[in-house]
C-alpha cells in the first residue's frame, strides 16, 4: 500500500495490535487458535523456566555473574515486596508472587520483539492473573480466620451499628473492584505504550511523506526504551499490589 493511498482511506490503528492467527484450531465450538500472542506467552514461560533453572542448577556460595543477576531479582522480590508488604508469614506466598513477577516481566519484554504480540496487552491474560490473585487472597483469608471472622474484619472496628451494613456493602464493592483495577492497570499500560509507538511510526503514513520520519523515528525509539522500563515497573506494581491484598487478608484481625 502506498503512503498516499493509506493516508486517503484512513486506517484502523488497533487492527495492527490484534493477534494474527497462525494455526486454526477449534475445540467444541470454542476458538483456541494458535495466534502469535499464544506463541509469545509460551515463549515467555519457556524463557522463565530456562533462565531460572539454569541459574539454580548448581548454586555456588560465591555466585558467578549470571547467578548473582538472577539472585538479586529474587532477593528483591523477597525483601522489597514480601517482607515489606506481608511480613514473615508471607514467605508461603513467595513461589506464587515470584512466578507472577517473572511471568509478567517476560511477557511484557517479549512483546517488544517484532512479530510478537504482548500477551499482557490482551484483556484476557491480565484478567486471568487478577482472578487467580482474587481467589487466592479470599480463600486464604477464609481458611486462616474462618468465614465469619474474616468477613466481619472487613469493616473497621468501633463503627455505630447502623453504619455497619453500608460500610460492609461498600467493602464488597471495593473487593470486586480490586481485580478489575489490577487487570485494567496492566492491560492499559501495556496497550497504551504500543499504541503510542504505532502512532509515532504511522505519522509517516498519515502525512503521506517520508519527510516526517527524521522526527517520528527517534520518538518511536525513545518510547521503545521507555517501554522496557515500564515492562519492569508494571511487573513490580502487579506483584506488590497482589502482595498488599494478600497481606490485608493475612492481617485481617487488625
Amino acid at each position: 500500500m502506498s503512503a498516499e493511498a493509506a493516508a486517503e482511506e484512513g486506517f484502523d490503528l488497533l487492527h495492527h495490535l490484534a493477534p494474527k492467527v497462525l494455526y486454526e484450531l477449534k475445540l467444541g465450538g470454542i476458538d483456541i487458535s494458535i495466534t502469535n500472542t499464544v506463541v509469545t506467552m509460551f515463549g515467555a514461560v519457556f524463557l522463565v523456566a530456562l533462565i531460572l533453572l539454569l541459574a539454580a542448577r548448581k548454586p555456588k556460595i560465591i555466585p558467578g555473574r549470571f547467578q548473582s543477576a538472577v539472585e538479586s531479582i529474587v532477593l528483591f522480590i523477597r525483601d522489597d515486596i514480601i517482607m515489606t508488604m506481608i511480613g514473615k508469614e508471607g514467605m508461603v506466598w513467595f513461589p506464587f508472587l515470584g512466578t507472577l513477577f517473572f511471568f509478567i516481566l517476560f511477557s511484557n519484554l517479549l512483546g517488544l520483539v517484532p512479530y510478537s504480540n504482548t500477551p499482557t496487552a490482551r484483556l484476557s491474560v491480565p484478567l486471568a492473573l487478577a482472578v487467580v490473585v482474587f481467589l487466592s487472597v479470599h480463600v486464604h483469608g477464609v481458611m486462616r480466620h474462618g468465614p465469619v471472622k474474616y468477613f466481619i474484619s472487613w469493616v473497621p472496628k468501633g463503627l455505630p451499628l447502623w453504619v455497619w451494613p453500608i460500610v460492609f456493602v461498600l467493602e464488597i464493592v471495593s473487593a470486586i473492584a480490586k481485580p478489575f483495577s489490577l487487570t485494567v492497570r496492566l492491560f492499559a499500560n501495556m496497550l497504551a505504550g504500543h499504541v503510542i509507538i504505532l502512532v509515532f511510526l504511522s505519522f509517516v503514513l498519515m502525512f503521506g511523506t517520508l519527510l516526517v520520519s527524521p522526527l517520528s523515528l527517534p520518538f518511536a525509539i525513545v518510547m521503545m526504551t521507555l517501554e522496557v522500563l515500564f515492562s519492569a515497573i508494571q511487573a513490580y506494581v502487579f506483584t506488590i499490589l497482589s502482595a498488599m491484598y494478600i497481606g490485608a487478608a493475612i492481617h485481617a484481625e487488625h
Partner: protein
Amino acid sequence: MEGLGLLGAGIGMGLAALGTGLAIGILSGKAVEGIARQPEAGGVIRTTMILGIVFIEAIALYTLVISILLWSKG
C-alpha cells in the same frame, strides 16, 4: 452530529492527563522533600510513593479504556 464520540474521547483523555499529571507531580515533589529531609527513610517513602502513583495512574487508565471504547465506535 458525527464524530462527537471522538471529541469526547479526546477531551476526556486530556482532562484525565491533566489531573493525573498534577497529582503525580505533587506526590513526587512531596516524596522528594521527605527523602531530602530524612534520607534514611528513603526506601519506605519510595515504596509508598510508587503505590500512590499506581493508584492515581489507574484513574487515568480507566479514562483511557473509555476513550478507546468511544474511539472504536467513532
